[in-house]
């Protein structure tokens, strides 16, 4: 259950801050799950990040506020780790006007321009060239911002992946392509979807830096690998790497069978590699006095999410005027 694997541990405050983010994400996601069961969140799409927290938190800790993050529809965790307020995020889930996207985007289309969090995209692979374009703007403007682009393992077999990664290599764009390899597309295992299951090796096809495969359940390892990748992207050009991880709530709410289908695998990941448990254990070992702080963070997460739900439920829904607004810039 150890993490960091001998690498130098960040200081206590840093670890605690990561712990804070990870328990906040977990609490937020599990609350979403319950709210959906209670039909307080509706719709057909809701893809939860439970289990993958270390990837988002460890990766986003490696970039600066001026840098950029973009992801697919499994976007709650990335939004939270990027520092977006849970209230407007929860309001978005509930389709409220106070949601980050005015209730028009929903779970799959969170974004916060002020946090340089660019979304939240629902077409597999569709956000990859957007990441390249955002990086191009930085390069074009002579800044050294980096774009961190999260990519699903299943998405890496789509044409967008090939074209966007190649373009980023040809133009030496400052993008870190981080594959969150949670082993599955929806139900299809990576071994049955990809001729090359070691996805990071695809870097060679673009002549770009191969950042390797990392343990995505180890927030310290993720952060370390991302630090390197970000430094490379900032100076030299794109990097591709993958983090091995696992989703606890199946593909999304439409996936009613997730806890039956692969029961043993799921239980094993939860029991042996849970990223929060592992970070907690590591903290306790390195800083035996940190249990109370951790408990306080857990309680704070619960309070924060409760407040977010309250904020969301009390917010007004959009109306007929909102419906027709922002089709175009007028």
């Amino acid at each position, binding site marked *: 259950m150890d993490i960091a694997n001998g690498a130098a541990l960040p200081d206590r405050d840093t670890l605690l801050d990561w712990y804070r983010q990870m328990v906040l994400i977990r609490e937020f996601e599990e609350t979403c799950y319950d709210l959906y069961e209670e039909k307080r969140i509706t*719709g057909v799409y809701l893809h939860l990040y439970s289990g993958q927290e270390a990837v988002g938190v460890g990766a986003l800790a490696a970039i600066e506020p001026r840098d950029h993050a973009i992801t697919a529809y499994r976007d709650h965790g990335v939004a939270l780790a990027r520092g977006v307020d849970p209230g407007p995020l929860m309001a978005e889930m509930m389709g409220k006007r106070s949601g980050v996207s005015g209730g*028009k985007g929903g779970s799959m289309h969170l974004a916060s321009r002020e946090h340089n969090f660019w979304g939240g995209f629902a*077409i597999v692979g569709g956000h990859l060239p957007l990441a390249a374009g955002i990086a191009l703007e930085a390069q074009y403007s002579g800044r050294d911002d980096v774009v961190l682009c999260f990519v699903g393992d299943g998405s890496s077999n789509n044409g967008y992946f090939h074209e966007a990664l190649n373009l980023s290599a040809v133009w030496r764009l400052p993008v870190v392509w981080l594959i969150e390899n949670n082993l599955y597309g*929806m139900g*299809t295992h990576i071994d049955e979807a990809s001729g090359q299951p070691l996805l990071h090796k695809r870097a060679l096809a673009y002549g770009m830096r191969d950042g390797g495969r990392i343990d995505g359940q180890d927030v310290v390892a993720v952060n370390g690998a991302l630090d390197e990748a970000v430094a490379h992207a900032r100076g030299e050009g794109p990097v591709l790497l993958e983090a091995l991880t696992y989703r606890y709530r199946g593909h999304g709410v439409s996936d009613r069978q997730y806890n039956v289908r692969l029961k043993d695998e799921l239980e094993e990941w939860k029991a042996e590699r849970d990223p929060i448990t592992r970070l907690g254990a590591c903290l306790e070992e390195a800083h035996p006095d940190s249990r109370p702080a951790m408990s306080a963070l857990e309680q704070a997460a619960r309070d924060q999410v409760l407040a977010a739900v309250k904020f969301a439920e009390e917010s007004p829904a*959009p109306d007929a005027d909102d*419906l*027709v607004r922002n*089709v175009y810039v007028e």
Partner: protein
Amino acid sequence: MAARNQPMREALRKALREEMLRDERVFVMGEEVGKWQGTHRITRGLYEEFGDRRVRDTPISEMAICGAAVGAAMAGLRPVAEMMTINFAFLALDAIVNHAAKIRYMFDGQFSVPLVFRAASGWGDQATASHSHAPEPIFAHFPGLYVAAPATPGDAYGMLKTAIRDENPVLFSESIALYPKPGPVPDDEDHLVPVGKGTIRREGADVTLVAWARGVEWSLQAAGQLEREGVNCEVVDMRWLRPLDMDLVYDSFRKTNRCVIVEESLPMYSFGSEIAAGIQENMFDHMDAPVKRVSAMDLPLPYARDIELMALPDADKVVAAVKEIV
């Protein structure tokens, strides 16, 4: 003919299964169609029954799914390729239009491309802008392809069989909202609905409602309401967006001299545009009033439930349109 009441979902599954049993060349491919049982459960049980040779899970690769279906069809198989939702067919537009639809013509008949692209279509249910489309009209713009869009389980059954047996490529649109809706499905393994033939769903003398897929349901509901107010609607279900059964529309229009077109698609350059244009061109002397169109509002679809539904057609909007012209 004997028939059994079944949801459209089951009718489609039955048609697929029977055609696979009937013809060894028929196979299914697409994302999650096999072990996962199909996202919309249309292929449920087929993987277990037919195995991975004939029920083929694919990577998330719409261009390759559609393109490989074209190649396999040229070579003699009869692929039924599933687009998990019709939105993803946007990524394969080139394979569908520039390849499937044109190969026969470009090589002057050396090849035929007998395949079906099944695509789950439509919106509602907060699927948001990029997952909420009924864009069948843009596919039907192109010759070389047929476009099917059944409104009832019986038609879904017969039209899918027709599409599979036909020698031409067919974009087969299935309305997600209609999947659970039941209706009679003929007990006849050779029940075929001819390509390009619409049907009258309800006879009436005052106004013709022309619709497809979900539009038929809204039209029938509106017709029911209007009947109580003494307006007698005829409902034409076009069933195919290409070829278009304009004769059927004209026959009805000759009787009613009034028409409202009802569809789930966006309003511009759409089904309503085409049908209205055809009526005024060919039925000019029979027109007692302008043809009206009821469609989705001209905007991307939002997530929030209340405003999403405002943007969609419904029976009330159809009733209001009819009242404008009677």
